[in-house]
């Protein structure tokens, strides 16, 4: 479970103090698929970075599975990130000269030797993301959609509590984006994988159970697909 309590984030831009997040409170339950939406500069990607422990809030607290990220030292936070969080980025961030299999195994290598059960997990993931037969292919020889599939498998190889995805379909055309979103939905439903996805795209956000609507560093509203006025509110927000 993710708990974001009274989180603020400030940056200095020259002499000027910029407040990107202005007191965010949020709870995301295990197994939820949540989308974070908002205009550029509204703070949605900053929030994802803070949840991912890639940066620390100026004030407030973020807990994942009851463990506070701020209370960990840098080393502990790095290990926690590797073991409990998976990341998917818009530009895939694969190691181009490594093969599909090597890219997916990379987080395990960082944690020690690959064991038999890890190898099984890699093989299963390759099959689940639809890349059977591509195991030995170098990442830079893959299409954008295939690279994102590798990135998803790599993010999931350590069975993270949370998968954090920052505009995972931002570089892909609609048809390929659809395949990636279907894949995320399948992992969410089949493996109860918690997913937090930042997107500016309503066609992607609609895959999530709840949508967090951000504006000017605060949560304007959280809408759930179970709400009666779900579509209506989204329309109002977008207009």
């Amino acid at each position: 479970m993710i708990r974001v309590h009274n989180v603020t984030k400030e940056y200095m831009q020259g002499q000027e103090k910029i407040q990107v997040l202005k007191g965010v409170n949020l709870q995301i339950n295990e197994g939820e698929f949540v989308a974070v939406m908002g205009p550029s500069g509204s703070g949605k990607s900053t929030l994802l970075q803070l949840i991912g422990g890639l940066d620390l809030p100026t004030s407030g607290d973020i807990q994942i599975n009851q463990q506070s990220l701020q209370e960990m030292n840098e080393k502990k936070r790095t290990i926690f990130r590797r073991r409990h969080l998976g990341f998917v980025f818009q530009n895939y961030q694969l190691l181009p000269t490594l093969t599909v299999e090597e890219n997916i195994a990379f987080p395990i290598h960082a944690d020690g030797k690959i064991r038999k059960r890890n190898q099984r997990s890699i093989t299963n993931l390759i099959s689940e993301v639809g890349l059977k037969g591509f195991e030995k292919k170098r990442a830079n020889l893959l299409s954008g959609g295939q690279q994102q599939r590798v990135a998803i498998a790599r993010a999931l190889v350590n069975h993270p509590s949370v998968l954090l995805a920052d505009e995972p379909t931002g570089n892909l055309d609609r048809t390929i984006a659809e395949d990636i979103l279907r894949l995320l939905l399948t992992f969410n439903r089949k493996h109860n994988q918690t997913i937090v996805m930042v997107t500016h795209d309503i066609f992607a956000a609609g895959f999530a159970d709840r949508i967090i609507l951000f504006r000017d560093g605060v949560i304007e509203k959280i809408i759930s697909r179970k709400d009666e006025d779900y579509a209506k509110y989204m329309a109002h927000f977008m207009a």
Partner: protein
Amino acid sequence: MSVKYGILTLLSVKQCHGYELKIELDSLLGLKGKINPGQIYTTLDRLIRDGFVTSPGMDGEDRRLYDIHIKGKEELNKWLIEPVAYSNTKEDFFFKWSCARKTNSELEKLMLTQQKELIVKEVMELTKLKTELILEGDERRYLLVTGTLLHLEADLTWINQVENRVG
């Protein structure tokens, strides 16, 4: 949608009785709603009259069965491969937009905003339905919804383009 070709499609797969045709046609219609049973029987009468459909008799439960005739199969195949011209279902909207643009730029902006709101609402409802269809494994209806969503995306892109030019 043409009930005539829906019936011919179903009968080309197997013999059916009237009620079975109604159920299958509702499913074939997918998102467009349900069909009136009366319409099925009047269409069947016309198809028999034109020699496209025959009735080989009753089934075990005393219900009249229908079957496709070779002439019906030919008619169906001809229809199936005929390309469908783009039907401009948004004709009313484009006409209204042209009128709004000619008369008052504030009204034009407002009508575009409201149209956008309507499209986003439909996108959200259809995407919700789409994810349910993915999980149910209903590929045919999923693809139909995907097609509608792509049209809505095009409409949304067009409105954004107009709005940017209106400034």
